[in-house]
């Protein structure tokens, strides 16, 4: 077996698993901090029960996010040593800054939050949660800045056989990173809002703990409305930026083979990479791809055929990933807007509540698919236009990687199952009764 392929599988498994937990951590920490602040301001214990209920779920999720995050940093060294050596000068510093600036803060203050309940004033305790929430999101900003460098490398020069930093501010204010930050962090809030609304819907359908869950629902709903729309708007800017900086990714997103003006979007297709065409195409909307990429129905969009074969990403996963992400994103906007207009009669809409309950997995799927588009769409490059993935792996034996890959799948599968089981159990149990 090919060690590069195994390392890619392992990295994909580890990252995608890690990212099952990260968005909820980022989003719900902000919402919990808001709930606790409401408690401090109003003294209403409903908010305290909310804080504790969501806090418990948050902590189970947080534990899994933290432990799976450590392996990611070290995998660059273990499995991608040639990458690490080549771009460490730029990329490594961003990870080191993330740890020292943000992750320390988050990890230290989460301990204070868990164990500090009776040891400090309610006000101080709420402030601690804001620190946790802010630090987590700042962490995310640094990681996305690092990923932005892989997508659109800037601020470096090729010297001494590697990429060396020449302009730190160019790296910090990389347009690609900024778009990613504005897309990913609000999408975490969307996921958290739907998580809260979905679990609240479960209890509201059973007409239990109505005060806590009606309150939670009403806090999460506007977050869902605003953020789901915002994520889509930023996504549009993203499309334009991808068209400009990564034409191969755009072409793969749409399984677009021939360079043409008034390029269409096909709703569904089955791409055949050998024959360089789509064997089936359903519902082609002319001009839409040109509009997506250049905000001009007549613009010319480069097709995959005009990109050398060895510089094309795998088409099918990117094509399906993009459709899934956009489809779910649109659905989430509709669901949250509908909820907003029905917000005073939610209890009388059991059908809607059921729909919201079953929507809990949707943002998870959309976010994972978004990463498939971003990361698979960047292939065959690990750093776009600078270093190919095939040249980036460690010179290690395939058997070593195979064993660790099997280990990852077993361990993560097991822990993931236990983690989600515990979250579901605690979610169903509901909050502590009012005193």
């Amino acid at each position, binding site marked *: 077996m090919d060690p590069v392929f195994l390392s890619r599988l392992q990295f994909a498994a580890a990252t995608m698993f890690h990212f099952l937990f990260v968005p909820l951590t980022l989003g719900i920490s902000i919402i919990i901090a808001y709930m606790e602040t409401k408690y401090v301001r109003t003294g209403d214990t409903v908010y305290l029960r909310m804080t*504790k209920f969501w806090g*418990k779920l948050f*902590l*189970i999720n947080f*534990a*899994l996010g*933290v*432990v799976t995050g*450590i*392996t990611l*940093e*070290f995998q*660059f*060294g*273990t*499995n991608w*040593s*040639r990458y*690490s*050596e080549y771009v*460490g*000068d730029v*990329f*490594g*510093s961003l*990870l*080191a*800054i993330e740890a*020292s*600036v943000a*992750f*320390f803060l988050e990890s*230290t*203050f*989460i*301990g*204070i939050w*868990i*164990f*500090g*309940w009776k040891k400090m004033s309610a006000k101080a305790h709420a402030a601690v949660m804001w620190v946790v929430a802010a630090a987590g999101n700042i962490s995310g900003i640094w990681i996305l800045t690092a990923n932005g460098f892989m997508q659109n490398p800037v601020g470096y020069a090729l*010297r001494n056989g590697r990429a*060396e*930093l*020449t302009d*730190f501010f160019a790296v910090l204010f990389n347009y690609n990173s900024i778009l990613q930050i504005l897309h990913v962090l609000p999408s975490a809030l969307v996921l958290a809002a739907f998580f809260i609304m979905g679990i609240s819907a479960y209890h509201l359908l059973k007409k239990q703990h109505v005060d806590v869950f009606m309150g939670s629902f009403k806090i999460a709903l506007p977050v869902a409305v605003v953020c789901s729309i915002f994520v889509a708007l930023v996504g549009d800017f993203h499309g334009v930026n991808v068209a400009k900086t990564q034409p191969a990714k755009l072409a793969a997103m749409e399984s677009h083979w021939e360079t043409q003006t008034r390029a269409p979007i096909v709703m569904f297709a089955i791409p055949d990479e050998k024959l360089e065409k789509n064997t089936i195409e359903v519902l082609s909307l002319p001009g839409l791809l040109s509009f997506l990429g250049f905000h001009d129905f007549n613009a010319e969009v480069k097709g995959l055929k005009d990109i050398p074969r060895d510089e094309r990403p795998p088409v099918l996963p990117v094509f399906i990933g993009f459709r899934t992400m956009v489809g779910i994103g649109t659905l989430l906007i509709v669901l949250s807007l509908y909820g907003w207009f029905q917000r005073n009669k939610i209890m009388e809409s059991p059908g809607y509540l059921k729909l919201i309950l079953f929507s809990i997995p949707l943002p998870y799927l959309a976010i994972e698919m978004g990463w498939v588009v971003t990361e698979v769409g960047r292939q065959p490059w690990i750093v776009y236009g600078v270093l190919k993935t095939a040249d980036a792996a*460690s*010179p*290690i034996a395939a058997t*070593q990687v195979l*064993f*660790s890959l099997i*280990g990852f799948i077993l*361990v993560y599968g097991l*822990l993931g199952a*236990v*983690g989600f089981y*515990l979250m579901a*159990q605690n979610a169903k149990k509901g909050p*502590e009764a009012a005193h």
Partner: protein
Amino acid sequence: MELQSIWFFLWGLLWAVFFMTDGFDFGVGTLYPFLGKTDQDKRIMINSIGPLWDGNEVWLLTAGGVTFAAFPKVYAVMFSSLYTPLMLILFALIFRGVAFEFRGKINHEGWKKLWDTFIFLGSFLPALLFGVAFANIFQGIPFDDKGIYHGNTLKLLNPYGLLGGALFVLLFLQHGANWLNIRTRGDLQQRAIDVSQKIWLVLVPVAVIFLVASYFATDLYANYFKTPALFLVILVTVAALFATRIFIAGRRFFKAWFASALTIVGATFFGIIGLFPRLFPSSMDANFSLTAFNASSSPLTLKIMLGVVLVFIPLVIIYQAWSYHFFRHPVTREDLDLEDAY
């Protein structure tokens, strides 16, 4: 001092602080099945490190991140050469972390036993493997001029490597027992005090054997003979080790804990100073060794990172010290009753 040398010692310092902080978590976790007689004892033990272990573990991430940022080539060669032991450490740490969180979530004997096992393994294995790994680094690792590893993972378990592992486990056990002396009361505390004195009796001879064996198995002492004043570091470390015992006998547990902390930092620096300027020596040819000068990042990156580290690491130390201070009292019934306590 050149930028690279500053970074070399910062790199060493970050590892030392990681061993000093997460070290007592590892110690507590390793003592856990032996000192925790009842469920309440066990809960007191894990809750004694509950608020702190997560922040402590970030020192590992920072040590790794700084290796990546300041010495990318070392990061690449070190972690790919030590692939299997590092993966074992990471899996162990994963299990330790979730075990704290999961253990109390279901009130079932078998469930708790399962996670108890992981708390022990997740603490003992990293302690052992970090010791084995660093002792092997002191000896040199077989990699060539292209950074390709030619060794065999099982060969890491050579006598000097295992001695390093034993030393780390004992240092962390001492440190962990000293922590329990501070944060427990009653029977459990009595057992902790008892065991902290017994560990010391084993730690001292192992430390002496390690210091002697290092003379024969490594060339760490070369720097010391060049600059004899450096022997002071060893002297201070040994003094801290003896102070630990005196403070325990005098029931001055905070001071004993500081002394074992200083012992760990000293022991780490004993190796770091001996390595200088090498971060990752090659046993195949000294010319292949990765040093602060041939494996560092560009001066611009080193400068920016130095600025970041000089501003933020002192801040981290301040708020972590505050958090330690905040949770210095013995774990009480009320602490265990907290909804999210472990």
